[in-house]
């Protein structure tokens, strides 16, 4: 696919207390960013079940953004550290599946950081645009078993 016209689809997981509010704030302040990201609200980044990320990837997302409160500022004291651990684990898992780990990004954004969140989203969209479409087999309509994803690992990953 031509990367010039390629419009990536990105699923973003946000925390109700910080990054979702940052997204709201970006809106209230009319800060602009490209429309390629679709956000999901959770109560905490600690709610991030790794299967959510795999589900989104398998479902056709080209990149996944995980956002949460800055370390030490979690509304639930320390759950964002758990998100951080899962993020690192997920990156390795993705690599083993032949998917470039850069397709998963973690951003800390406080409720006050609307501008920062918008900048990070913009930047991530461009990173994914440069990586090109993930083109996961599920997109073709038939669901191919995950194992066949390994084939591309040898080609350096998508």
């Amino acid at each position, binding site marked *: 696919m031509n990367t010039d016209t390629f419009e990536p689809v990105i699923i973003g997981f946000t925390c109700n207390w910080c990054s*979702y509010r940052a997204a709201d704030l970006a809106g209230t302040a009319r800060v602009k960013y490209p429309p390629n990201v679709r956000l*999901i609200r959770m*109560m*905490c980044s*600690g709610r991030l*079940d790794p299967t959510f990320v795999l589900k989104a990837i398998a*479902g056709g997302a080209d990149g996944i953004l995980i956002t949460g409160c800055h370390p030490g*500022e979690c*509304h639930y004291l320390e759950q964002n550290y758990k998100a951080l651990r899962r993020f690192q684990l997920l990156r390795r898992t993705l690599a083993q599946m032949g998917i470039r780990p850069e397709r998963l990004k973690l951003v800390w954004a406080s409720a006050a950081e609307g501008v920062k969140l918008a900048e990070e989203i913009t930047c991530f969209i461009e990173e994914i645009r440069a990586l090109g479409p993930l083109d996961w087999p599920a997109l073709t309509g038939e669901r191919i078993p995950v194992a066949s994803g390994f084939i591309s690992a040898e080609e350096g990953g998508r």
Partner: protein
Amino acid sequence: MSTEKTTPPSPETEKIGVYVCHCGSNIAGIVDVQEVAEWAGERLKERGVVVARDYKFMCSSLGQELIEKDIQEKGLTRVVVAACSPHLHENTFRTACGRAGLNPYLCELVSIREQVSWVHTDKDAATTKSKAVVSGGVERVIHHEPLEPLVVPIHPTTLVVGGGIAGIQAALEIADAGFPVILVEREPSIGGHMAQFDKTFPTLDCSACILTPRMVSVGSHPNITLLTWSEVTRVDGYVGNFTVTIRKKPRYINTQLCTGCGICQEKCPKKIIDDVYEAGLSYRKAVYTPFPQAVPKYPVIDRENCIFFQKGTCRACEKFCPTNAIDFSQNEEYMTIEAGNIILATGYDLFDPRRVTQYGYGRLANVFTSLEFERLSNSAGPTNGNIVLRDGVTPPAAVGIIHCVGSRDRNYNNYCSVICCMQGLKFAHLVKERTGATVYNFYIDMRTAYKAYDEFYQRVLEEGTLFVRGKVAEVTDAARLPGEDGKLIIQVEDTLAGIQRRIPVDMVILSSGLEPRHDAKQVAQLFGLSCSADGWYIEKHPKLDPVATMTEGIFIAGCVQGPKDIPSSVSQGAAAAARVLGRIQQEHIALEPIRATVDETKCSGCRICNNLCPFNAILFHADRNVSEVNPALCQGCGTCVAACPAGAISGTGFSNEQILAQIEGLLLLNLTPKYTLAAL
């Protein structure tokens, strides 16, 4: 939680209504709302959507009636509203559903304003994204369950932290209404910054005259427990039922016996520079009350500086105390209290002008901070209110007051500290009145909003104070021109006249800005609050909910929320009190039923979840080898839900099914025939 076990919800069994809001032109200006509604009605028909409408203002009563009517006439079982942020109107639409007989939690509000129309410019792309967002909401709402809010009792006691004017006002309002208050203050006395001032703008009321009676009321109020020289060290629980641990530092004074006569302070041989109350301009003793009108009247012994504690001998205070009230054997005490609500009013710190090195504070003797000047001009201060230079005797012949020190400056703080212009005018008036000196105010813009402020500015102008518009480049003692010897020279570009000026003066006063307390972040964490980028505590809504916070049951008042003057601090103290009183009088509060629950039949007893919960809400039943969540302690973060390897824990309101379905919806995997995303 559904009462009867029926077939799991599915598109076949649900009747979903979709409502797309124009929000005037806020959404409709960028998103083709009509197309989104039509699309949802057509393409999501197989997903259970039976009606899809667009309307100018969904939140208006007409918009809400639209939903209610459809619920009643079409028998809707789920509702999706695509409009603004759930933080704004989730409650509105849930309530509307409730009125029509649909469980409020079967309604989902998805944001196409804050997250689409306000942040995107391409109309087609914004319309497409809105469709995906609606689709995500539809898929999610299929899996919603009817829920009942958790109703918890509200403990009638309120904890107020910080005894400045904001905290004092809040405490008095609640106590006067007949409810118990515990007021915790870190210093030996309440009063805060206001206790340091001589006069207050714009009326020039004597600060002590208006503050002291309030302090006395707090000290003697039957409903207020005053804990000074104390700090909160731990906060557990949630709205209605906080358990708070307070550390009471030892006073080394038996307050039952002490009469506040002050003899100990007279006899104590150890003098220490008083950096807090006297802003470093004067001394206090090792045993001290910060100021004569202190409440409570009992002194404290400052252990670090007490000769007895440091060297083992002295005990002068003990010898002279007529009531034997000195007690060196006291230890710090920890006490645990219960409170239903908490008001934080911990105020501000003054910006340290040493950071603006070119203004010479700390290097040039006769450069003063604003707080130092407050003490200098205070008739109860170190000079008895005589405005003199650092030598303690010479009155200044010319004084320069520099505005915006550390404020409205990219190098320090971008924000305006609000009070400094008025405080600069107050100083100008006091200097003129008491010394007759020539006074210059160096300002960027004069900001004299609010009642009677601009009139005060006019008055100071008429009194002959000179105003130079421009940001001061430097204060120096390096004389270059005749008449500059022994003076401080203020180098400034006069932007109205368009010339550079060097103005020699004897005294410079820096209108330092206000900053969040040095420990504001730690205190915020203790109470589970968030700070703005500048460090001020964030209110729930900047316009409509200025004293509530995102943490239920915790309110903020005064400068802890942002720089403000005394009238605004008092208003916020009263407002926070009113919010708390409203709740106490209800006796109960309904909370979002977002909680985790363990399905015992699935739990393998691995205990992985046990240590993950920051609130210790998960207990393990060794006899049955299963874990259980205590709903009273669970805050609903969902971390355990995500971690359970057996998938035994589910989170109400944010279940796996709901989130996975929303992902499918957002990616439009729900559409048949299959869409490729790019084609949409």
